[in-house]
Every structure is written in C-alpha cells, then in structure tokens.
C-alpha cells in the first residue's frame, strides 16, 4: 500500500511531464489558459481553490470548534451520543447531495436575499461588490464550510476526549467554572490535535470537487469580490477533462492534478502527525484516533 502512494505520485508525474517541461514553475503564476493556442497557466484555479478554502475555514472554524467543545465537555450524557451520531451522518452525506442542495436552495437564497443585502450595507468593501449571480465564491465557501465542519467537529471531539480527566479535575478543584476548565486545562492540552483536525478539514476542502463545481460558476477570473464567479483546481478538472483532446491540454490538466495530489498529501501527512502526537502523549498507538 505504501507502494501504491509512490506509484500514484510517479504515474501522475509522468503523465504531466509534457506540461511540466513546457511551463515549469511559471505554470503556477500565469493567468493564460487557452487550449486553442496551447498556453496554460493555472493561477486562476489555484487562486479559486485558496480563497474558497480559506473562506470555508473562516466560516466553519468557530462553529465546529464550539460544537466539538460542547459535545466533548458540556453536553448532558443522555443526548451526547445521539448528537455525535448526527454529526457523523452530516459528515457522511455524499457531496453530490450538498451540491444539489446548494444549487436549488443556497444559490437562489444568496442571489435574491443575502448578496443584495450585503452589497447594500457592506458594498464599500471590495469583497461585496458587483452583481449577484448566486453562484460564485461565496456559495462555494458556504457549501465547503457545511461539508468540512462535521469532519472538524468529529475529529476535534475525539481529540478532546483524550485529554485526561485529572487535567479537568485539578482545575475544578481550584474552583474554576466550566468554561475556565476548558480554556485553561483542556484546549491547550489538546491544541495540537485540534490544529490537526483543522488541517484535515483544510485538506478535505481543497480536494472537494463536486459540490464546489456545481455552485462556483466555473469562470477562470480573479476577483476580490466574493460574488464573482470563479473556478477551482478540482472544478476545472471535472469540466474540461473529458473534452481535452490535445495532448498538451490533457497534460496541463494532469499537471493541476499533480499539484493537487502533492498539496493534499503534504497536508494530510501533517494533519495525521499532529493528531497522532496527541495519542502518543497518552499511550503510543493504543488510543484509536481517526
């Protein structure tokens, strides 16, 4: 199986090599994507992926951390496992379903209600300018946030549950309130694991394909406005792959896939290392952390 990862890297690398040789590093910084002329630069897609992912983490972060703390620390025992199970279901719903919901519910909502409202009241910011299409960066960010928050919540909750009870009892014995216990004794102890959980969510957001493709609008523009339609690395692959007949076009697409593969590989390795370290703190490998 380790061989499988290496093989994957090698095969994708080899298939992308025409584009690698032709464009090299400038692939990352060029905005020109023209299959007819044979010029390819991935900047708009990289930009789209980065911004939508950042937006998703911004939206999902506080909510998932709060939910994880609630589920691990404050929730009454009787409803705790039911609530956790529901979060698990939320994490397991296929992405196509979120995409479908995004297209038919979220996009109209954004187009007719949320975006005009934001434009009217916060229009002086560069993020909230331009016409509202509904589909675009904002919709992608929200859908991604909905998709990654259950993952972050579930993993953070498991990390928080590893924190030894004695850690909490010591604080309680000193007369701390429940929140103070969490802030002083639990969160710092679990810090690395929680960062790991967020990194895992980050990797999922970068690699998330379908739901984003359905709501982001698929236009390779670079704009500061969150209302603008955009494109991501994954959505360009879905949209153009089956139509790419030129060898160079296909190589360029696989070049994007290679970038995606390497980035998510690094992110996932870092995330797992951080989560594993939480386990080592207690007992090497004995605690099953996912």
């Amino acid at each position: 199986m380790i061989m499988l990862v290496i093989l994957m890297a090698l095969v994708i690398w080899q298939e992308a090599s025409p584009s690698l040789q032709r464009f090299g590093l400038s692939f990352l910084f060029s905005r020109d994507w023209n299959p007819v002329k044979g010029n390819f630069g991935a900047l708009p897609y990289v930009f789209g992926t980065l911004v939508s992912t950042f937006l998703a983490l911004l939206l999902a972060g506080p909510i998932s951390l709060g939910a994880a703390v609630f589920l691990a620390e404050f929730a009454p025992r009787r409803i705790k496992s039911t609530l956790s199970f529901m979060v698990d279901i939320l994490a397991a719903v296929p992405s196509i379903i979120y995409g479908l919901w995004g297209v038919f519910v979220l996009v109209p909502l954004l187009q007719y209600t949320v975006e005009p409202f934001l434009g009217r009241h916060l229009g002086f910011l560069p993020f909230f300018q331009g016409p509202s299409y509904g589909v675009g960066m904002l919709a992608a960010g929200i859908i991604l946030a909905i998709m990654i928050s259950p993952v972050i919540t579930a993993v953070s909750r498991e990390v928080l549950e590893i924190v030894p009870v004695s850690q909490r009892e010591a604080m309680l014995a000193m007369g701390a309130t429940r929140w103070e216990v969490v802030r002083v004794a639990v969160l710092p102890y679990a810090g690395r694991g929680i960062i790991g959980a967020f990194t895992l969510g980050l990797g999922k957001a970068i690699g998330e394909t379908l739901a984003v493709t359905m709501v982001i609008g698929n236009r390779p523009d670079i704009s500061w406005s969150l209302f603008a339609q955009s494109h991501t690395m994954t959505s360009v692959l879905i949209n153009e792959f089956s139509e790419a007949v030129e060898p160079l076009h296909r190589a360029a697409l696989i070049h994007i896939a290679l970038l995606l593969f390497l980035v998510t590989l690094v992110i996932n390795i870092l995330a797992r290392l951080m989560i594993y370290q939480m386990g080592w703190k207690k007992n090497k490998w004995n605690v099953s952390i996912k």
Partner: protein
Amino acid sequence: MERFYQIDLRKIWDWLMVGLCALSTFALLAILFCVLGYIALQGISGLSMDFFTKMPVPVGLSGGGAAHAVAGSLVMVGLACILGVPWGVAVGVFLAEYEGSRLGDAVRFTADVLTGMPSITAGIFIYTLVVVEMQSFSALAGGLALSIVIMPVVARNTEEILRLIPRSMREAALALGIPEWRVILHIVLPTAARGIGIGVTLALAGIAGDPVPLFFTALNNHYWSLNITQPMASLPMEIFRYATAPFAAGHKLAWTGSIALIGLVIIPMLAARILMPGYKIRR
C-alpha cells in the same frame, strides 16, 4: 463588593461561552435537518419502483426512472467490492495481528493519509494507468478507482474490529498447536465477520455517492449497459447531469436519486449503531 462583582462576571462569562458552544452544535444540526428535510420534501413523491426499474424517458414526457444508473452503480460498486475488500481486509489483518512493527506503523500511517486524500486523485491515477492504456473509458476502470478509495477505509475498519477480539481466544487456539494462519482464517476472522461486514458496508456506502473518480474512469452512459469494458452510468453521475440540466423532470429524478443515496448511507450507519454499540465510524 469588588470580589462579588468579579465572581458574577466569571459566571456570566461561563454561561455565555457554554451557550455559544451549544448554539454552534445546534446550528450544525439545523443544517443537517435543512438539507435532509428539503430533499425528502422534494424527492419523496417521485420515489417508486419505477425509479429503479424503468429507463429515462425523452424530455417532455412524464414518468420514467433511472434503472440504467442504478444498475451501473451496483456493477461498479460490486467491482470495487471484489477488488478492494479482500485487499483492505488483508491489510487490516496485517495491521492488527502484527502490531508494533515499524512496517505496521508505516502502513497504518499511509492508510490514514490515504483516507484523507480527495477521491479525484484516485480517478486521475486510474485514468492514466487504465483508461489511457485501454484507449476507452470503462466501468472496469471505474471499479478500480473506487476500490482504491475504499481500500484504506476497509483496512482501518478491519483493524479496529480485530483489536476488539480478546487475546485469550487467539492464545487458546495457538496453544492447541494450530498454525497462526489458520488461527487468523478460522478463528479470528469468523469472530469478527459481523464487524468487518459493517465496516465494509459503510465504506461501500461512502463511495456509492461519490461520482468524482468516475468522471475520469467510467464517465457516463445514457443507455442500458452492463458491459464492463464500456462507459457505464451511475447514480451520482446521473444526479449531477440531471441537476445541471434545465429540465424539471430531470430535477425530479435528481431529488429521487438523492433520497436513494441518502438512504444508502444512513441505513448502514444506523445498523452499525444498533448492532455494534461503541463502533467508531471512520472518516
């Protein structure tokens, strides 16, 4: 006075933060009910046997189903099962039975990392390896791509289950002089069968709703086909196509398909919860 005031502030702060945490939990769950409730409302009316047994009708006519997509999904998930499950279970057995070795740690780590990798990379990988060689998109490639996605999940699930089996059972069998491979095959695996089965079902349910690897491998097919060397339709691909097409009848089918997919995911999860309390769901 000063002291009382401070204590009050701490209590208020405490209530505030606990409240915020509770609020964010319920916000998450509200989203769940929003999504599931909306889909149930939209799709339940179209849910009938027709969806599973009839072919789609031309645009403009009413009725019809997505039998070709249901069949295609079954075939490809079945292929993934045949290719990926034995491999995954074998890796799981290795991880559980030979724990503590350096190689075992490395494999476990790789499996966890692979679980988090986006499925699009598996699709591209199989594309370059199989589709380019065969010169055609095919259901076989689709099954292969899906098997790569489920393999690490099956492996880790199997390992978790095998760890729950008491050590004494293995020791008793070994003490009778049974060789280790027979202990694993005839004692450990049958004992863990139910758990492994649930793990596999969960993994399969996870890929049944994911069309992303199929974009690069099986592609899609608008007609009835069970030939695994040819492109094949699948439920999530058809939902995607219907959802992005501007026909109300297609949207209807997409909603119905979504209900089928959600059922496919939630029912095994509920079963796992009821049959094996304490079972941990991997992600």
